[in-house]
């Protein structure tokens, strides 16, 4: 059964990974009607690799400068009622599209996304991200879904209703988190976004600190930019306004407390016991992680990766604090789209 769906794959110098992405799309239990690879003026033969696998390849006249730009360019060629966007380093579980499409039976659903897990879990950064995803997609995102307001329809793989996507004029590059921007625009326009945990995708996550830094820089600035852009509109969306406020608090005040206050208190009280504060939330993290890992029969892998999560969390806090200072205090908005993963 072919899905009435076009997949847009934005790709800039992805010759090493785009073939896996295309093959996973072609192997779907509900294969898409068309796969469009937007070769964003790559210099490594990405277009040739994609063309050899029999998909449509389009190329803008100049590099669009961002994933959003490439995706919006690809949207012009879509003729199906549903559009999927998938990163060129992401592969799908064979039934991902089939699992995701039924939620669009409700006409108000504008976008849907699935569970995200790193394809490789080897370096400390991939392990940290693995735990972060297990935690977020098993706990936070499921609660958001139950309240009808997933915070983001993930940029690495989501399906959209084409007409509503076009009504929002596609993806915008005004922020560095185009997926968050689009999701929040859908909510403000009165549409629904869904999360389907059974639809699984596997992106390649940053495996070095340099790549992770680029990604975290993009994400942290993108989050702050979106909060600044949408805060008035979000106040009208129940649950989402609370979830965003809590996320913003955790990205700013909690991050500052996490990095600065506990060591200062330890020094002030001259007692290392204060540093136990770092462990006090360990069960909050471990319980959902172990639940998610048990379902996937990956408990040992998860337990081995937990320490890496605490390292990544600290790095995360630094990047979010820097982004908040740059965007809110110094007015230095970051808009250069640096590709990491």
């Amino acid at each position, binding site marked *: 059964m072919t899905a009435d769906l076009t997949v847009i794959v934005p790709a800039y110098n992805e010759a090493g990974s785009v073939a896996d992405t295309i093959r996973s799309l072609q192997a779907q239990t509900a294969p898409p009607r068309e796969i469009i690879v937007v070769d964003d003026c790559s210099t490594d033969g990405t277009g040739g690799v994609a063309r050899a696998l029999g998909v449509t390849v389009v190329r803008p006249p100049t590099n669009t400068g961002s994933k959003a730009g490439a995706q919006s360019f690809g949207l012009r060629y879509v003729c199906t009622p549903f559009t999927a966007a998938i990163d060129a380093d992401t592969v799908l579980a064979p039934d991902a599209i089939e699992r995701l499409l039924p939620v669009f039976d409700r006409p108000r659903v504008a976008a849907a996304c699935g569970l995200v897990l790193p394809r490789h879990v080897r370096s400390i950064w991939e392990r940290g991200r693995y735990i972060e995803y297990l935690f977020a997609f098993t706990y936070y995102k499921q609660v958001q879904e139950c309240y009808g307001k997933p915070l983001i329809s993930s940029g690495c793989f989501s399906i959209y209703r084409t007409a509503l996507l076009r009504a929002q004029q596609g993806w915008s590059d005004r922020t560095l988190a185009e997926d968050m921007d689009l999701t929040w625009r859908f909510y403000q326009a009165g549409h629904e976004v869904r999360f389907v945990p059974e639809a699984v995708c596997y992106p390649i996550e940053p495996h070095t600190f340099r790549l992770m830094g680029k990604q975290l820089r993009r994400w942290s600035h993108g989050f702050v930019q979106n909060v600044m852009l949408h805060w008035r509109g979000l106040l009208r969306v129940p649950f989402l306004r609370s979830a965003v406020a809590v996320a913003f608090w955790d990205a700013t005040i909690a991050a500052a407390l996490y990095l600065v206050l506990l060591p200062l208190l330890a020094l002030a009280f001259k007692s290392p016991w204060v540093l136990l504060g770092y462990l006090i939330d360990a069960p909050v993290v471990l319980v959902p992680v172990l639940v998610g890992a048990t379902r996937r029969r990956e408990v040992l892998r998860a337990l081995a990766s937990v320490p890496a999560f605490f390292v990544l969390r600290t790095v995360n806090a630094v990047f979010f604090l820097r982004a908040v200072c740059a965007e809110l*205090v110094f007015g230095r908005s970051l808009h250069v789209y640096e590709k990491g993963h």
Partner: protein
Amino acid sequence: MTVGVPGTGIGGMFYLVSALAMPLRQAYRSLRRRPSAGWRIVAGQSAMAGAILAAIWVTGWLVGIAITASAAIVRPPHLLAGAHPGNVLRTAALVLSAATLAAVLLGVELLRLWVHRETGPRLERGAEIQITRVAVLVVLAVAADGTHTVAAQNTSALARRLARADSAFAAGDATSAEREYAAALAVDPENSRATYRLADLSKRGDPARALQLFRRYVALEPSDPWGYMALGDALARSGSYGDALRSYDDALRLAPDERDAVIGRARVLARAGHTDAAVADYRHWLDANPSDAEAWGELARQRLRQGRERDAALAFERAQAIAPDPTVARRLAVARAAAAAAITPLASGTHDSDGNTTLRLGGTGEIASWGPMRFGLTASRTAIEDGVTTTGRQDLTLGAAWRPGAAWQVQASGGASRLDAVAGRSATILPTGQLRARWRVPGAGPIVDLRARRDILDATPLLAANRVLRTELGATVELPVARVFKLRGIGRTVALSDSAEVNHRTTLAGMVAVPVTPSVEVSAQFHTIRFAHPTTAGYFAPRLVQVAQAGSYLEFETAQGILLVFDIGAGVQRVAEQGATIGPWGRALRLYSLIVVPLAVGRDLRLEFDGEQSAFANEVATTAQWRYVSATMSLRWALD
């Protein structure tokens, strides 16, 4: 992506409470027959929340046991004394995060009520309109994907609409053109010409719509540099300077030598306050295109913002030589006068409620500006009297001002003051001076202002007789927050010395300022001032002064070029004298105004008025109930 710091902060508590509330929500929705997540998922999430609670409890218990067991080795913190450490830790963590979460959620709800306090019904209608618009677009999109016959009919209708719109546009009938282009877009939402023209027509009346349409045009025609330029201009008008610059960068990638792209980018930089970068862009363009009179004129205006009047005059001269223009000629004359040598005679006087009066007569001579530097020499004579005693001082000061770039200002002066013989003391010469550096991050960023000075207190004959010297170090830091308000902090330390003693004054002040318009700012301020000890030198030195004030700063320029500035403050103040408790709050008022009247090009009359009514105004106050007025008149006469 995952935002925040998962686990820490209040995110964990928020989702814990949300998960625990899910069964109630599910039951409610089931009863009302509304779509819901299903009991299986609700049960799973609730069980997970329960497990998290249990795990927190167990962790607290284990940590408590560990602390108790190792108490002999490492001393636990005082806050755990007398209680089971595990109980204290887990209870404190839960209570603290629950209270913080409640405060944040309450804050969000209050913000929502405040932001949408008067627009509730209208917003509901707005949401409906938006949904309707989306539905219309969906219908249009479906119609566009319809049968070949329908498409052919649409093509014909579109051509007719566009022809009518173009005719109206060419005839200058903006209303009809706007209506026809909108109708054309309803037939073909991806018609780029109609999108661009409609955006262009919407620029004045509906800038948000224009911005949206220009974005759409760029998506439809990504290889057209003019689209990026138009989008850049629309973004700059909306204050999104970073996005505007990126849009111009896109245009320059497509058309690197296009004048409108280069100059347009420089204009955005200038508008954003990146004056040095704008000057660099203009100069780069003018190096290759020296006959562009308009660009010379714009470069000159940026040079004036940099404080480089001579360079501005040279640029205006180039513009005027290429294309004579009366406006440019007038600006050239103003720039030449600003750069020229000048003399400024001045007269000023002060009077306070204790009967002290000063009268100062003098003048300043400036030599013509030399690149970013300017030098001047000031000489003055001041008479000081209190109805009984009369004395005086003479001052000679050499000053220099340096503007290395638009972001930096440095001023320095140094000289000497000769105090007349009085009350048995012979005439004395004392060195005085001042150094001030001001730095502003380009693009309305933070400001740092540092100042050091040494001068003589001369408000009363007694102060002059005691030769009280003031040596001050001060800093002001201003942080703009989210383009909504500014936080300003002021710190100053002053040493007041005379032949008998040295006293110290410390001032700390914080204020929140909200720019209401570009020329009006309101603020709330709090100051504390402390003196180290009492004095007999003749100035008022209380132990502590606290001032809370609301202030407003207003700046206007009339059509005739008259500049009016008012800085007004009204509030309360309380004073604690040395060794005494703090007194009651009393009234504190202040007013500063500046009026600059251009009499002719290069001749500016400047009037300043200053007044205070409060228990304590500054260290020259001699009693605890004090009023003070001062007036200064000067005339800058350029020798061009």
